[in-house]
Structure formats: C-alpha cells, structure tokens
C-alpha cells in the first residue's frame, strides 16, 4: 500500500542556516509528490510539486525539493531559513483511489527557527 513517511517530528534550526526536511514514500508506480506548509492557525499552502521530468523542483518562498527514485525520497530544502519559515511541513503523495484522485499525507515535521 502507498504511504508517506516523514522521519523527523521536530527540527530546530537557527535563522540563516540551511534546512532539509526528509520525506520517503512507498509506491509501486510513478509518484505524484507534494510539499505543503501549515503556519499556526492557518490552512495548508502548496509549496511545490513533482509530477515528472526534472527531479529538482523549485517552489515558492525559496524552497526546492529533489526527487530521488533510487532512494524513494522527496526531501525539501532551503539554503537560508527565515524566522517566518517556522511552521509545520507536510509531505503528501497523490494516488488514484477508485474514480477520484486522492492525497495521503505524512505526519508532518514541525520546524522551529531560533533567532
């Protein structure tokens, strides 16, 4: 069965430091992968997506993610973190369930940014 794993529940980084959030998936076919961010008290905002083609995808707010089929991973990166990046980050996986397209989400990684 398809699944998404985010190994890190909570990560703390200093402002200006680089960031990498891990995401691993389990699926037998070509995955459709997403990263969403949820700021406190807010809904989810789509950061970036991977469907096919170039394995390095650029998103909003300076984020990028790299799809590695050999490692079944889709890690999110940012070269320099800003205090406003503090939020919860969800990796998600798109699949076809019956007649509908669905998303299944990882458990999320909470990012704390120290000044």
């Amino acid at each position, binding site marked *: 069965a398809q699944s998404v794993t985010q190994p890190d529940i909570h990560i703390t980084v200093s402002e200006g430091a680089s960031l990498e959030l891990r995401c691993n998936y389990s699926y037998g076919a070509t995955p*459709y992968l*997403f990263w*969403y961010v949820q700021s406190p*008290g*807010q*809904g*989810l*905002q*789509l950061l970036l*997506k991977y*469907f096919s083609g170039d394995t390095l995808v650029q998103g909003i707010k300076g984020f990028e993610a790299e799809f590695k089929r050999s490692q079944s991973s889709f890690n999110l990166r940012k070269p320099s973190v800003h205090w406003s990046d503090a939020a919860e980050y*969800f990796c998600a996986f*798109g*699949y076809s369930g*019956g*007649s*509908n*397209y*669905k*998303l*299944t*989400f*990882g*458990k*999320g990684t909470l990012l704390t940014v120290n000044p």
Partner: protein
Amino acid sequence: SAVISQKPSRDICQRGTSLTIQCQVDSQVTMMFWYRQQPGQSLTLIATANQGSEATYESGFVIDKFPISRPNLTFSTLTVSNMSPEDSSIYLCSVGRTLYEQYFGPGTRLTVT
C-alpha cells in the same frame, strides 16, 4: 490556484449537537474534499464530494456522522453530527485541480465540550 473560504472559522459546541461547516470556492471545481486534522496529527481524508454524485467516504467515516452536500460547483457543506469531545479537530476543505493537486481552505477549528 483557487481562493477558498470556510465558515465558521472556529466554534465551541456542546456534545450531542451538530455543526455544519461551509466551504466556498471562487471558481467552479469538480472535485472537493473534506479532511480532519486532529490535535497534533496529520490530515485524514473524510470524503470526496463531487458535484452531481453522492459523496464517497473513506474507511472509518460514515454518512450518518458526516453528511455532506454539494449543491453546485462552488460550494459544499460538511456536518458533524451528534458531536463528542473526540470530534474536536480542525476540519479542512480542499479543491482538486489537475493531477492530484489540491488547494486548501483555512480550516474550521472545532472544540466540543
């Protein structure tokens, strides 16, 4: 993308009562989804609401508890019926675009006392 609004943004309800959550989209969409996010947890899909057909519920969710309406291509409601404290969650609607892409509303934070 799409602009999605939800009403109410939050509510505190007594057990045994029901709450209807509204989701409005600024453009016509075929697929709408309802999710539950329990405290400190990830999102769990409750049901898919496509206009012109009955909602499709995920395992563990039933229509009697979470009836859904989808009267047109820009609006949907989710009712949480006969509430208990375990229903305290954030409820989010989303709309589907091409290739699994979904955009989310701001959520409704429900507390059941």
